[in-house]
Each structure stands twice: as structure tokens, then as C-alpha cells.
């Protein structure tokens, strides 16, 4: 068996956010199983550039699974078939010689396509701007152990802080709902002493913004947690819902 593969790609090409897009077929040869998915696309783009054609636009930055830029749907799965992986972390050895691979951009009203596979994910930034931060002044770093945080609580906050805002949750959700993202971003703050003080105000304004931006309503389909490259669980959504329901009768003060 040779470790060089030939793949048949169908890639979504769209000139700009206003144009209508469509699929284009590409044949990519000499793909090694050790390449990442993005390196495979780079190779295709080099070929396209050499032929004088417009290369495929796709987002990427860190190429090590921490920036969340490399958004795309690969054969109907956000970031492809690997569990807890981003597109940049996925190796081509997940595919076989002769495979057909269909690559589409994230599709959601709140994530308009900019060009080809690149979408505008700034809706997530807007949710953060609505309250995903701490406003109270805490001064300098406190004396270690002067603020007690249980190990499990700290771990759970950290699990949620692992969110890279890649958009896979809303992209994979049948309702294009941003609940897992918003849940992770409220949870990481609400669980810790510094974030707790504004938790009610925060959850209200972030959910309000999420709804305004045109994301759908969560119906507990659980595709978000399956797609999340950081393995964030819908337990965080339940926690955020509890917090939000609490705002009906209580406020931060």
C-alpha cells in the first residue's frame, strides 16, 4: 500500500457574501497521511495558483488547535470526522485513497460567508462584548489561597475556558444555536469568585445578544458537544439555564 493518496474534493466556492456560491470539483494527488487537512488544502491552492486560478479562501492562524479560525464542514461534520479536533489538527490519515471529500463553510444566518470557506464569526465576539468579561476592579493578583476555590470547581471553570470560539457548536447545531459557546463563556466566569459577582447581569446580556444576532433556540440535540474540539459538555448549558432562570426573581444585588 502506498501512503500517497489521491482525493476527489468538492469545495464550496463563493465570490463574496452577496454572490451565490456553488461546488467545484478538484483532484488532489500525492497527499500523505501525515499532512494536516490544511496542508492538503495548501497543496491544492499552490496548484491552483500555478495554473493562474483563484486559490480557495479559508481561515487559519495557529495551526495547533488553539485559535479556532480553521472553520469548515468536512463531509457534513464540523472540523471533519476526528473527535475533539480542529481542522488544522486533523491528519489526512483519517481518509483513504480515492475518497470523495465535500468541504463547505459554516452555515448560519449569524455567520455569513465572506468568501469560499471563510465566514464572518464576529457574532461570537459580539456575544463576548455583551458581557463576557469582568468589570469589577480586583486590584493586583491576590495572595495565593486567600480566595478559596474548590478543585472540582476550578477544573470545571478551566474546562469551559478551553473554548476557542471556533463556531463549530453553532455550525453543527441543527438550529444554528450558539448556546454551547455562550454557556462556556458564562460558566468560566460565573464559577470563580471574581466573575460570580456579576453573573446575573452577564448571563442576561449575553443571552439577549445571542438571540438578537439570529442564532436559533437550543432544543437539546447535543450535536454541539459532539462537534466541540475542546469537549465542552451540555452540562454547561444546563448550568447557564439555571443561572438565567434565576434572573427572573433575583438580580446581582
Amino acid at each position, binding site marked *: 500500500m502506498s501512503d500517497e493518496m489521491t482525493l476527489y474534493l468538492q469545495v464550496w466556492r463563493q465570490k463574496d457574501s452577496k454572490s451565490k456560491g456553488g*461546488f467545484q470539483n478538484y483532484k488532489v494527488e500525492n497527499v500523505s497521511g501525515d499532512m494536516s487537512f490544511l496542508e492538503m488544502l495548501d497543496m491544492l491552492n499552490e496548484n491552483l495558483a500555478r495554473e493562474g486560478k483563484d486559490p480557495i479562501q479559508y481561515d487559519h492562524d495557529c495551526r495547533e488547535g488553539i485559535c479556532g479560525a480553521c472553520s469548515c*464542514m468536512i*463531509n*457534513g*461534520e464540523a472540523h471533519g*470526522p476526528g473527535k475533539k479536533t480542529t481542522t488544522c489538527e486533523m491528519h489526512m490519515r483519517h481518509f483513504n485513497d480515492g475518497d470523495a471529500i*465535500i468541504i*463547505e463553510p459554516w*452555515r*448560519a*444566518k*449569524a455567520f455569513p460567508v465572506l468568501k469560499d470557506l471563510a465566514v464572518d464569526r464576529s457574532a461570537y465576539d459580539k456575544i463576548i462584548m455583551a458581557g463576557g468579561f469582568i468589570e469589577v476592579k480586583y486590584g493586583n493578583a491576590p495572595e495565593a489561597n486567600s480566595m478559596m476555590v474548590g478543585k472540582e470547581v476550578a477544573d470545571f471553570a478551566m474546562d469551559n475556558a478551553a473554548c476557542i470560539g471556533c463556531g463549530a457548536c453553532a455550525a*453543527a447545531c*441543527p*438550529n*444554528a*444555536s450558539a*448556546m454551547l459557546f455562550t454557556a462556556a463563556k458564562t460558566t468560566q466566569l460565573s464559577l470563580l469568585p471574581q466573575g460570580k459577582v456579576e453573573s446575573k447581569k452577564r448571563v442576561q446580556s449575553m*443571552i*439577549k445578544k*445571542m*438571540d438578537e444576532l*439570529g*442564532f*436559533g*433556540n*437550543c*432544543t*437539546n*440535540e*447535543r*450535536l*454541539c*458537544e*459532539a462537534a466541540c474540539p475542546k469537549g465542552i459538555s*451540555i*452540562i454547561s*448549558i*444546563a*448550568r*447557564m*439555564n*439555571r443561572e*438565567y*432562570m434565576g*434572573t*427572573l426573581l433575583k438580580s446581582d444585588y
Partner: protein
Amino acid sequence: MSWVSSYFASSVGKKSVMALTGLSLVGFLVVHLVGNINMLIGSDAFNHYSHFLLSFEGIYVLEAVLAALFLLHAFFGLMIAFQNSQARPDSYSVQTKSGRGTTFASSTMPYTGTIILIFLILHLFDLKFGEHYSVPNEEGVRDIYKLVLVYFSKPLHVAWYIIAMISLAIHTSHGFWSAFQTLGFSHPKYDGFLRKSSIAYAVLVGAGFSFFAIWAYLQHGGNV
């Protein structure tokens, strides 16, 4: 917007109404199913049980609450389904079943819900507001037992009833668990238990109600 209206306009607010009304309906169905057992005891037991319920002072209030639960649940359910269809104007070309998340039940909630809604309207029309037989020698007691046996003597009625109960079972197999998740009850300690309970509940109501329809059919309208 006041804080109350902004709560109920929000996605989580709407979902919490669905979950609370859904769970109340889940509870109502258990009471209804248990009440049906009177049918097996005999015509007297069933007619008197029904008469007892209807002669209760506050029955109109309870009926109004029940109707409101159904209407709120269906209204928010269909509204959520509509809004969600707007949230992704261009659908994906490929949808793979990765086997992770989403189930047949979870992805068909608006459809099974609509079947239940149609069923409910017909159910009230055919039975509650259906033919009025009187129990001989008992002033004002309706012979609902006879009506059930006459109604279910038609195979078509039984078949439609069972289709609706299968839809109900599918709906609640996701809905029961989903309501807890929505209301914030989700923890590895009991999530597995809730999931299993959801399936068990669905089988109980689906098979339970269907059993009574089949049993009634086998009475051949009461004239054996």
C-alpha cells in the same frame, strides 16, 4: 421591555416554558393512564370515575389550566421550530449521521408534536364532546364506557389512535429528558438515569394507552 416580557421573549425563557408545560403534560398523562384502569374493572367503575371527575367543583378551572398547558406548549414549540428554520437560511449539502448527538426523536419534535395536537383535537371532539349516552336508572351519569367501546369498535379509530400514541412515545422519549436538561438538571450522576427514565416513560405511555384502545376494540362495542 419589562424584565418579565424580555425573559419570555428570550430563547432560554421560551424553552423553560416548554419544559415546564411539557413536564406538566407528562404528569397529566400518568394520571389519565391510571384513570383508564377503571375501564378494566367494569362499566360502573369507569362511569362513576368519570362522573366523579366531572362533578368536582373546580373542574372548569382544572380543564382551563390543562388547555392552557397544551396551548402554551404547542405555541412555543411551533414558534421555536419556525425561528430555528430561520437561523440557517442556506442548509448544508451534506448531512452525515455521525452517531454522536441528535436522534430520530430529537429531530422530529415539531412533527410528532403536531400529530399529537391534531390527535388531541379529534380526541376531545370524538369522546369528550362526542355522543352522549346515559346510564339507565342513574340520573345525569354519562355512559362514557359505552362510548369508548363503540368508538373503538372501528379498526380505523384504533389504528389512528395507535399512530398517535407512537408519536407521543417518540416525542416524550426525547422530551422527558430534554425538559430536565432545559431546566438545568444535568449532572453526570443522574443524567444516565434521566435518559433511561425518558425511554421507560415513553414506552409506558405509548404501550399503555394503545393497550386500552386494543382492549376496547376486543369488546366489540360491548355487544358480545
